[in-house]
């Protein structure tokens, strides 16, 4: 067998000796997590379908149903009823639907696998994902709040209760989204996450009050995380209630169950 070896094991022109000389080391943990969170957020904001889900649909629903009287939202201004529900929808779209779809495809394309052999620890990756979800939610809340105010929204209540609801809601939806992404195929996750989004949009008290359903259905639907979040936000923001402990409790149970199941069942490849 003859072959032309060229620069056998040598250093071709332009490659100074020692370029690749080993100098291993992990970057400091906070820097790794910040870099990962920034990249994840960038990927999310660049993705058209994700933006449709997290920005366009909530914004349109809020604007449309506040100004056109299609759904009977009960006494008071429609925007006061709708805004808490749309905020809950925004949390679900990012923490559950968006995160499930993105993570499902990252798993499918080997991104999670490749990152698992990088210096970034797995919990660091999950922390970064959470940070990216929170950043997106802040952007959503700011945008939706501005629109709601423009439509004449007059919120009440304790901002701390609102924050607690949003955080627990995010935890509950993240657990469920990651559970789906880490166990189903990417295509199945895509289909199921969108279907669940649609069903919960209709049946979770987001724009249609739960009172419209029969009392037996109400009891079941009321236990869904989206119902607990929209109901809790509405109690505080529309009716000026104190801590909505019942709704917080439901969200806490979902969060614990969802995150524990995801932690146990999540498959990285």
């Amino acid at each position, binding site marked *: 067998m003859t*072959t032309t070896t*060229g620069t056998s094991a040598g*250093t071709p022109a332009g490659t100074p000796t020692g*370029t690749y*000389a080993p*100098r291993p080391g*992990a*970057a400091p943990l906070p820097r790794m997590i910040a*870099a990962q969170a920034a990249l994840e957020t960038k990927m999310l904001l660049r993705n058209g379908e994700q933006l449709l889900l997290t920005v366009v649909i909530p914004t349109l629903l809020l604007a449309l149903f506040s100004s056109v009287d299609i759904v009977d939202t009960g006494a008071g201004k429609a925007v006061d009823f709708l805004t808490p529900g749309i905020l809950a929808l925004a949390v679900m779209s990012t923490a559950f639907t968006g995160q499930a779809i993105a993570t499902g495809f990252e798993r499918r394309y080997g991104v999670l696998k490749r990152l698992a052999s990088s210096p970034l620890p797995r919990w660091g990756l999950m922390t970064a994902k959470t940070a990216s979800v929170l950043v997106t939610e802040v952007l959503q809340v700011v945008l939706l709040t501005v629109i709601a105010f423009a439509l004449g929204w007059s919120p009440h209540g304790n901002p701390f209760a609102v924050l607690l609801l949003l955080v627990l809601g995010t935890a509950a939806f993240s657990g469920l989204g990651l559970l789906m992404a880490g166990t189903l195929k990417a295509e199945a996750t895509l289909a199921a996450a969108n279907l669940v989004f649609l069903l919960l949009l209709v049946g979770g008290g987001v724009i249609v009050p739960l009172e419209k359903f029969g009392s037996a259905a109400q009891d079941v639907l009321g236990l869904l995380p989206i119902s607990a979040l929209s109901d809790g936000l509405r109690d505080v923001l529309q009716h000026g209630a104190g801590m909505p402990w019942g709704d917080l409790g439901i969200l806490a149970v979902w969060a614990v169950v969802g995150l524990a199941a995801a932690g146990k069942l999540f498959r990285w490849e």
Partner: protein
Amino acid sequence: MRSEPARPSPDHHPAGRRFASHPVVEVRSLVKRYGTKTAVDGLDLVARAGVTAVLGPNGAGKTTTVETCEGYRRPDSGTVRVLGLDPVRQSAELRPRIGVMLQSGGVYSGARADEMLRHVAKLHAHPLDVDELIERLGLGSCGRTGYRRLSGGQQQRLALAMAVVGRPELVFLDEPTAGLDPQARRATWDLVRDLRADGVSVILTTHYMEEAEQLADDVAVIDAGRVIAQGSPEELCRGGAENTLRFTGRPGLDVASLLKALPTDSTAAELTPGSYRVVGKVDPQLLATVTSWCAQHGVMPEKISVERHTLEDVFLELTGKELRS
């Protein structure tokens, strides 16, 4: 046939760098099953500094072995040490020191080519200069192209860049040139040689004989989940394997007479009229014997050729199988 892995001596080494003598990878009696299928079946492999090729056909257990070293899979039994560490239990310590190139994927579908590489660089303390690396791997033209729009060869080179950007001590390359055109393959080979010259150890899997012969200090031949031979390409080609000498001359020469002149373990035959083949230990002595026999019989031997055994032949002898299925 098993031999101790050859260790590259410092003078064999172009940069003259002295490699540490301890193994970079040490696999003992590794067993890994997927359901009822046994992918790796009691595999032993010791790789030392330098370039080690893990060679075998598809389904031989190459990827499973390498992925166990990378910490992706837990052994069902046996032990694995990489740079002296347990890849599962001491993963946090090991990961910054190794570079991994997966067989495919590993990049966000929405990321641009340079974006993912810059990101992986940020996860390391002393990364290579990303722009330089992009230039050196010929990825300069696709810096802002989306990952999905890159050609297969560009995606491979990006994955390679991601494996080396953190300046690791040891790089795992899983079929780094599968499906590449010859030019891209040569670029990858050059990079592997540069890594070696700069003191980075490389474990690569391949089913290309030529790749193993060109790059590796040490070759481990894997078949059906076991290492069936290990050694330098030269050792593997020499060990036990017989070589061939061919020449052409007048048809109908007295082969029996030629055979008498040859050492006893040789064979000689006229394959087609006027085309002769001698199989045996081909050395200068044998060549001289053949030519002087020809001279005695007034034969002008034309087109004398000596064929060394290649790893391909070795593999065929060891397994009775063609390497490329």
